[in-house]
C-alpha cells in the first residue's frame, strides 16, 4: 500500500488529498531541497553581523588547537573562557584541525584577549556552523523515514519546521552558535524514544548533555521516562512483601542503562579527572545574576514588572500602602514609603541598563537562587509525575516540553535562547492534537520575537522580522491542515483562541513600534535615556505569551484525558 492510498483512507482529509497520483516511488518527504535552499540564504548571511559569541568560539578553537588538553579549562587569556563540557571542546578541537593555512594566518587560531581576524575567519567559522548543521537534517530525515506511513506528512511538516526555524537562523547563522548541531543530538534521542530504543535514547541524551549542559534541565524527564519504560516492570506485579518491590526493578536493564550513561560520561570527563573542580566551576558559574544580559521573557520578567508597577502605585497613592500593610507583615513588605525611596535610590546607582548584574526588587521580596531552584524543581516534578503512570511517547514529549518550560520560566540566569528547549520538543508534540496548536503558536511567536533584540542592527531588521513572519504563516497554516482532531468531542475554549490570535497580531505592532523607537531615539532625549525600555517591552510582552502557553499546555497535560490516550 502506498503512502498516497494511506493518506486517502485516513478519516480527516489531510492536505493534497484530491490530487494524489500514485507516483512510482511514492512521495519522498525529503528535506534535501530545504537544505539546499536554506544553504543559499545562509551563505548570503555570511557577511552579516555576528555577536561576541563568534569570538568566544574562535577563542575555543584557538585554545583547543594550541594547548595540551589539561590546560583547556585553565586558560584565561581571553575573557571568553571555555565553559562548555568536554565533548564540545573535543568538537572544537576537531574543527580546528580543518583550519586552512590562510585562515590561520588571518588570526583565527591566536590566543589573545580580543580576537583580531578578518573575513576569512568569519567565512570559515560560518561554514563550520553550516556543515555541522547537516547532522540536524540527517537526524530529521531519519525521523521522517522511520515514522509510520500514515504520519509521514505530519512528520515532514514538523521536521521542515524545525530545520527552517527562525530561531536557528537568528541564533546560529547570524548571532553565531552551534545549536543546530547540538539539538540534532537531542532530537536523535527523541527519535530513539519514539522507536522505543531506550538504550540509544539514553546514549544520545547523555551525549547531548556532554556537549552542552543546558540539556540538564530536561534530565528529570529522561530519568523518569527511562526508569518507567525500561527499568521498572509492573507486569504481573503483586505486592506480598517488601521483597517484591525489589522485583519490580529489571536489574539487567538497569545495569545496561547505567553502563551506557556512565560510559558516555567517562569518555567525556576521564581526561579531565584530575581537574574536575576547575572544570565544574567553569561549567556552573553560580556567581551570575538572576537574569542574563537582558530580561529573558520568563516569570521573573513579569515579577519585576509587578515590582515596578507596585512601586509607582505605592508612591503615588500612599493609602494603598497602608491598606496592604494591614494584610501583609512588614517582613516581606516594606514598612514605610521611605524604605521604598531608599531602595530606589540604591537601585538607581546600579541601574538596569541591560547589563549582567544583580537585580534588586523594591517592593517585592528578593529572589535567591534557592527560590528559583525550588520553583523549577516543583514544576518539573509536576511535569514528570504523570510519566510514572503513563509512559507513552506522547506523554514523554509533553513532560519534556513542560520541563523545558519550568526551567525557562523559573530558572536562575536564563538565556532568552533557552526557549529552544521548549519549542523543539513541543514541535514534535503539537501534531498529536489540534488543541495544542494555540499553545504552540503562542510560545513560538513569543519565543521567536523575544530573540529579535539579539540582532540589534538595522540591516537585520527586515531579515529577522520577515523570516519569522513567513515562517509563522507557512507553518501555522500547514500545521492547522495536517493536525487531526483526535478527540471526538471538540473541547476548545474559543475565547482563548481569539485572545491568542490578538496577542500574536499585537506582536507585529510591538516589533514595529520598538524598531521605530530605536531608530528615532536620537531625537527624543527621553528615549535615549531609557534605552533599556525597548528591551523591557520585549521581555514583558513576550513573557505574557510564554506564560500563557505554559498554562494552556499544563491544563491539557494534567486535565485532558482524551488527548493522551495512546494510539498504539
Amino acid at each position, binding site marked *: 500500500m502506498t503512502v498516497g492510498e494511506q493518506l486517502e483512507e485516513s478519516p480527516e482529509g489531510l492536505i*493534497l488529498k484530491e490530487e494524489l497520483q500514485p507516483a512510482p516511488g511514492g512521495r519522498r518527504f525529503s528535506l534535501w531541497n530545504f537544505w539546499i535552499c536554506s544553504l*543559499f*540564504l545562509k551563505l548570503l548571511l555570511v557577511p552579516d553581523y555576528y555577536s561576541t559569541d563568534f569570538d568566544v568560539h574562535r577563542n575555543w578553537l584557538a585554545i583547543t588547537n594550541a594547548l595540551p588538553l589539561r590546560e583547556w579549562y585553565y586558560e584565561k587569556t581571553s575573557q571568553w573562557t571555555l565553559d562548555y563540557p568536554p565533548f564540545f571542546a573535543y568538537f572544537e578541537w576537531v574543527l580546528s584541525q580543518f583550519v586552512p593555512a590562510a585562515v590561520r594566518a588571518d588570526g583565527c587560531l591566536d590566543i589573545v584577549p580580543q580576537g583580531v581576524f578578518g573575513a576569512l575567519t568569519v567565512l570559515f567559522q560560518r561554514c563550520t556552523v553550516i556543515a555541522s548543521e547537516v547532522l540536524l537534517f540527517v537526524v530529521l530525515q531519519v525521523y521522517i523515514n522511520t515514522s509510520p506511513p500514515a504520519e509521514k506528512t505530519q512528520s515532514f511538516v514538523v521536521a521542515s519546521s524545525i530545520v527552517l526555524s527562525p530561531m536557528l537562523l537568528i541564533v546560529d547563522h547570524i548571532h553565531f552558535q552551534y545549536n543546530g548541531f547540538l539539538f540534532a543530538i537531542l532530537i536523535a534521542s527523541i527519535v530513539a524514544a519514539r522507536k522505543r530504543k531506550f538504550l540509544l535514547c539514553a546514549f544520545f541524551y547523555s551525549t547531548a548533555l556532554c556537549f552542552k549542559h543546558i540539556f540538564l534541565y530536561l534530565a528529570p524527564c529522561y530519568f523518569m521516562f527511562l526508569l518507567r519504560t525500561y527499568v521498572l516492570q509492573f507486569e504481573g506485579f503483586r505486592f506480598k512483601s517488601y521483597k517484591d518491590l525489589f522485583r519490580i526493578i529489571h536489574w539487567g536493564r538497569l545495569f545496561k542503562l547505567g553502563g551506557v550513561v556512565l560510559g558516555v560520561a567517562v569518555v567525556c570527563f576521564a581526561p579531565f579527572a584530575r581537574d574536575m573542580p576547575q572544570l565544574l566551576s567553569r561549567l556552573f558559574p553560580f556567581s551570575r545574576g538572576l537574569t542574563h544580559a537582558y530580561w529573558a521573557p520568563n516569570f521573573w520578567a513579569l515579577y519585576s514588572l509587578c515590582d515596578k508597577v507596585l512601586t509607582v502605585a505605592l508612591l503615588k497613592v500612599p493609602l494603598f500602602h497602608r491598606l496592604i500593610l494591614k494584610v501583609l507583615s512588614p517582613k516581606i513588605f516594606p514598612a514605610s514609603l521611605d524604605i521604598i525611596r531608599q531602595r530606589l535610590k540604591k537601585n538607581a546607582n546600579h541601574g538596569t541598563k541591560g547589563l549582567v548584574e544583580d537585580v534588586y526588587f523594591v517592593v517585592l521580596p528578593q529572589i535567591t537562587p534557592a527560590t528559583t531552584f525550588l520553583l523549577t524543581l516543583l514544576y518539573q516534578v509536576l511535569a514528570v509525575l504523570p510519566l510514572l503512570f503513563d509512559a507513552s511517547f506522547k506523554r514523554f514529549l509533553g513532560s519534556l516540553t513542560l520541563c523545558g518550560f519550568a526551567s525557562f520560566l523559573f530558572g536562575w540566569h536564563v538565556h532568552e535562547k533557552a526557549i529552544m528547549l521548549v519549542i523543539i520538543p513541543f514541535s514534535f508534540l503539537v501534531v498529536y492534537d489540534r488543541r495544542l496548536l494555540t499553545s504552540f503558536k503562542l510560545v513560538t511567536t513569543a519565543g521567536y520575537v523575544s530573540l529579535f533584540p539579539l540582532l540589534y*542592527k538595522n540591516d537585520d531588521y527586515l531579515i529577522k522580522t*520577515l523570516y519569522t513572519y513567513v515562517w509563522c504563516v507557512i507553518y501555522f497554516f500547514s500545521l492547522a491542515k495536517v493536525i487531526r482532531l483526535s478527540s471526538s468531542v471538540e473541547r476548545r475554549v474559543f475565547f482563548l483562541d481569539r485572545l491568542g490570535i490578538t496577542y500574536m497580531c499585537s506582536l507585529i505592532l510591538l516589533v514595529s513600534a520598538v524598531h521605530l523607537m530605536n531608530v528615532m531615539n536620537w531625537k527624543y532625549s527621553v528615549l535615549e535615556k531609557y534605552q533599556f525600555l525597548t528591551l523591557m517591552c520585549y521581555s514583558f510582552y513576550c513573557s505574557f505569551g510564554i506564560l500563557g502557553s505554559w498554562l494552556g499546555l499544563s491544563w491539557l497535560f494534567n486535565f485532558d484525558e482524551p488527548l493522551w490516550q495512546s494510539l498504539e
Partner: protein
Amino acid sequence: MSSEKKEPQGEDASSKTKSLSKLQRNKDEAAPEVEECFYASPIYDFLYPFRSPGSQWVTEYIIVVFLLIIKSAIGLGSYSGFQTPPMFGDFEAQRHWMEITQHLPVSQWYWFDLQYWGLDYPPFTAYHSYLLGKIGTFIYPPWFELDASRGMETDGIKSYMRFTVLLSECIFYIPAIVYFTKWVGRRKKQSPIGQFVAAAAILFQPTLMLIDHGHFQYNCVMLGLTVYAINNLLDGFYAMAAVCFVLSICFKQMALYYAPIFFAVLLSKSLFFPRLFNIPRFLSVAFATLASLFVMFAPLYIFGGVGNVLQSIHRIFPFARGIFEDKVANFWCVTNVFFKYKTMFTQSELQFYSLVATVVGFFPAFMIMIFYPKKFLIPYGLAACSMAFFLFSFQVHEKTILVPLLPATLLFTSTNWNNLSMVFWVNNVALFTLWPLLKKDGLWLQYCVCLVMYNWLLGNFSFITPRFLPKILTPGPSISNIAENYRRRSLLPHNIIWKIIILVSYLCMLMIHVLEYTIAAPSQYPDLWVQLNCTVGFGCFVLFWMWTYYKLITLRNKTIQEL
C-alpha cells in the same frame, strides 16, 4: 471545515485534475510539451503543498516575502564604490542626489558641482530622490547634510538606502510583475501554481537583484513602470500605458530603448486596429503623453526657466562621452579589438554610424508591431528592439543589459519548453557579462550564490540530483509527486543545434571563470578575461536577438496560446 476540504471546489479543482492528467499523459508519452514546464524544479516542489484554491494566498506571501528576505540578505554585502574615496560609486551618487535635491532649489539641481556626481538622470529620478531624501532627513538629518555628508558610509545610511530600494521595488516592480503573470496565465488557462512559478521566475531574476540590491541602483522603478505600461496595454488602457511609459522614461532615459515598440503599438492601435482612424483614442494617447511629459518637466521650467530644462536634457544625453566606456558586450566594444573606432572615426561619425546601425536593428521589429499589434507579441517586440539598442547604440553601459533582459524575462510566462530554455539561457549569459562589474564591487559571494540559486530553483540543476548518497538522505523533490522525471530535466531546447550552442556557451563561461581564477591576465593585455567575457556575451546576445526576431516573424499570426 472538513467538508470543504473533501469536496474539491468547482472550476479550479476540475481544471487542476485536467492539468494533472495531462501532465501524467505527457509523462507517459514523453511528449515535448507539458502544461507545467517547471514541474521538475525545486520551486514547484516548494509551492506544491499550497496549490489548492484555499491556500493560494500563502503562495503569494511565500514568494514575495522570501524575495524580500533574499534581497535584504544580498544587501548585507558591499556596494559600488564602497570605501573608495574620493569619488566612491553609484551608491554615493544616489545618496548625493538625495542630498542635493534636499538642500538646493530646483533651479540648481542640474547645475550643482557637476564634477562630483552631478545629476544626470531625468526629473522623475530627481523627484524620487527628493522624496526619499525628505524621509531620510526626517529620520536622521546628518545622512543628507549638504556637503558634510559626502562619502558617508555608516551602517545607518547603508541600511536606509537599501531599504529605499526595497520599498521602491515593492511599489513599482513586484505588483506589476505579479499582475502581468496573472493576466497571461489566466488567458492561457495556466494552473495557478504555474502562474506563481512564472512570477517567481521573473522576480528572482538574479541580474536585477544583484544590480539593484548589491551594486546599488533603482532600475526596478524604471523597469516596473515599463511593466505597468505593458499591463495597461494588455488591458486596453492606452492613455494610461502612455503615461506609465513616459514616467518610465522620465525615471531613466534607458527606457527609450523600448520607445519604438510602444510607439508602434499605440500608433497602430489608434490608427489601424481594430478599426481605421480611431481618432478619440489617438488624441487621448497623444494628450496623455504630452501632458505627462509636461508635468514631469514643469517644475524644472517653473523654477528655472528654459535654460534649466535644456541643461537637464544636456545632462541626460551625454554625447560628449565615448561610444563605450567600460567593457560591454555590444558590437562596438567587441569589434573594437580589430578596428580601433576611436582612432578611425570622429565622435560625430561614430554617433551617426551607431544611429544607423541601431535603426536598422530595430526597424523590422517596429514594422512587425505596426502591422501585428498583438498583445502577446509585445514582450518579443520589446526584447528585439531593446536588444538592438543594446548591441548597436552609442554609450551603452554593461548594466543596460537589464533593459532588454526585462521583456525577455517576461517570457517566463510562456509554457513552451523551448522558449523557457532560451530565456533562461539569456538570463545566465546576462549575469555572466556583469561579473567584471560585480567582482569590482566585491560581490563575488553574492554573484555565485545568486547564479547557482536561480539555476537550481528553476530546475536547471535537477539533473545532478546525486544518486550516490545513502538512501536515508533521499535527495530529490520533497513532497511533489514527480520523483522519476526529476533528475533528467534541465532547461535546454529540443533543437539539437541550440542545445549545442547553449552548452558550448556555458562551457566557455565556465572556462573563463576558471582561467580568470587560476591565471593572472598577461601584462600586455590586462583586460583579457574581461574582453573574452564580453565577446562570449556578445555572441550569445546576438544569437538571442536573432531568435527573438525569428519568434516575432513566426508568431505574428498565432494566438496567445503559442506564446
